């Protein structure tokens, strides 16, 4: 597997350096850290918003740092949660005295590292709240559900809301409310390759696909013969609609997310079927996001995330 990198152990550092060099008007890198912080941070009077996770999911998370989004993003090694000291640096950098909300994806490592960071913050007198996102409809048991692409909806909605003055408890409440209304389901055709190992995370035959794959290439519900776009879209969309009992007449937003190497052409072919199916069910598609939001290196495949919209969510999203 060919990669445009230098030494594998430097990919995260060099990527962050590149991001900081590319977007000096928006963000800066905290010295000696893997934290990218919005230039204006800490924004006076505003609750700070911090997210993060392993690297390899770009543009998540640093790509979502900015106005109406995150105040800081913390990058771990590739597919490895960031460490508590780094998260804590981010918390300190964005706290304006109004506390900091941590948006965490439900992976053991992420949950534990953010929890430890929160303990460090508490010890220093900084208030934090954590919201753990569990949007992956592929997993049955609610507690085990992973946080995947739907997390971006939470960033966006809460990011906008805190800009308008919500306090920490209100922000946490809104984040939980948003998370409850998000479901995601992914399918993968080809794994990504972690730079350090140079090995694919799993193997699939030419005629196979894997339904419900996680964002690090962990396996999902089942391996199936490859299907055409419309059948595959039906499987994904029906799963998320059913899982949340979306009813006729409701309003939704949909993210059709590419996992890294799927051409945008294919994402739009999928999205076309999504729009058709929603129309048939009289569900109103109020907003579409089609592109790469939460990737897994060069994994091929896509995920659908649905957000059920009520008046509150519409206010901050649309």
């Amino acid at each position, binding site marked *: 597997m060919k990669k445009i990198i230098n030494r594998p152990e430097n990919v995260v550092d060099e990527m962050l350096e590149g991001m900081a060099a590319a977007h000096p008007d928006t963000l800066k890198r905290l010295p000696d850290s893997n934290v990218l912080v919005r230039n204006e941070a800490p924004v006076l009077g505003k609750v700070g918003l911090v997210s993060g996770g392993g690297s390899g999911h770009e543009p998540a998370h640093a790509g979502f740092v900015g106005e109406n989004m995150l105040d800081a993003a913390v990058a771990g*090694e590739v597919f490895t949660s960031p460490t508590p000291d780094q998260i804590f640096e981010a918390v300190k950098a964005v706290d304006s005295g109004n506390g900091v909300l941590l948006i965490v994806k439900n992976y053991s490592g992420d949950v*534990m590292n953010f929890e*430890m960071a929160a303990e460090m913050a508490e010890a220093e007198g900084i208030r934090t709240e954590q919201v753990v996102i569990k949007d992956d409809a592929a997993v049955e048991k609610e507690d085990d559900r992973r946080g995947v692409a739907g997390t971006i909806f939470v960033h966006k909605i809460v990011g906008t809301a805190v800009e308008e003055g919500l306090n920490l408890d209100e922000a946490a409440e809104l984040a939980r409310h948003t998370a409850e209304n998000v479901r995601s389901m992914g399918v993968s055709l080809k794994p990504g390759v972690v730079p350090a190992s140079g090995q694919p995370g799993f193997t699939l035959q030419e005629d196979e696909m894997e339904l419900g794959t996680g964002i690090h290439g962990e396996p999902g519900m089942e391996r199936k013969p490859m299907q055409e776009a419309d059948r595959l879209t039906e499987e994904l969309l029906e799963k998320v609609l059913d899982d949340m009992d979306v009813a006729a007449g409701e309003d939704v937003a949909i993210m059709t997310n590419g996992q890294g190497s799927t051409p945008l052409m294919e994402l739009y072919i999928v999205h076309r079927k999504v729009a058709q199916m929603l129309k048939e069910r009289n569900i109103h598609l109020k907003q579409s996001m089609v592109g790469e939001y939460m990737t897994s290196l060069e994994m091929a495949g896509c995920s659908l995330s649905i957000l059920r919209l009520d008046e509150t969510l519409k206010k901050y999203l649309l």
Partner: protein
Amino acid sequence: MNLSVEDVKRWMHVSNQKIQENKEYLSELDQPIGDGDHGHNLGRGFEEVVKKIEREDYQEIGALMKDVAMTLISKVGGAAGPLYGTAFLKAADEWKGSPTITEELFIQGLEAAVEGLRTRGKADRGEKTLIDVWVPVLDYVQNHDIQPFELKGIAKEGMQSTNGMQAKKGRAAYFREASTSHIDPGAYSSYLLFEALYESVNIEEGAHD
């Protein structure tokens, strides 16, 4: 079994050696039921641990263990970082101010560490994690005269017992039935730590013979 500052330093050195030697193997264990990085995560951390503790002169074991814990916390990441970090940090609290760890202190430290692991990981025995090594080891030290060789054997049994369990916690849980008939990588690295303890104490005892 009494452990001096030098003993604990040696324990950490031998632990590092074992982790580095088994780095690829640990990541391989993590491949079929995880994301294949456990060896690299711990390797990165323990390399820093020995660098850190080499530079310092410790008067007591609490400070030494705290440095170990904080280094693991800040260098490992993933699930293993906070777990091992918490375990060592809790033990460090128990060992604060002590230039030597007596058996009693050792047991207290281990109790605190396991308590820390349970709270941090919200996991229990039988869920195919490193807990399946730490809990039997704790059981053993609580109920027997500590023989490092036996302790190592208990750790090994615990590690082996994870082969056959279905994972309930961590990434491996997503593999459900497929996670059975694999050794848990965290259990294996925990076994290595206890094996390192035995070997460092053994060298020590050998050296004193």
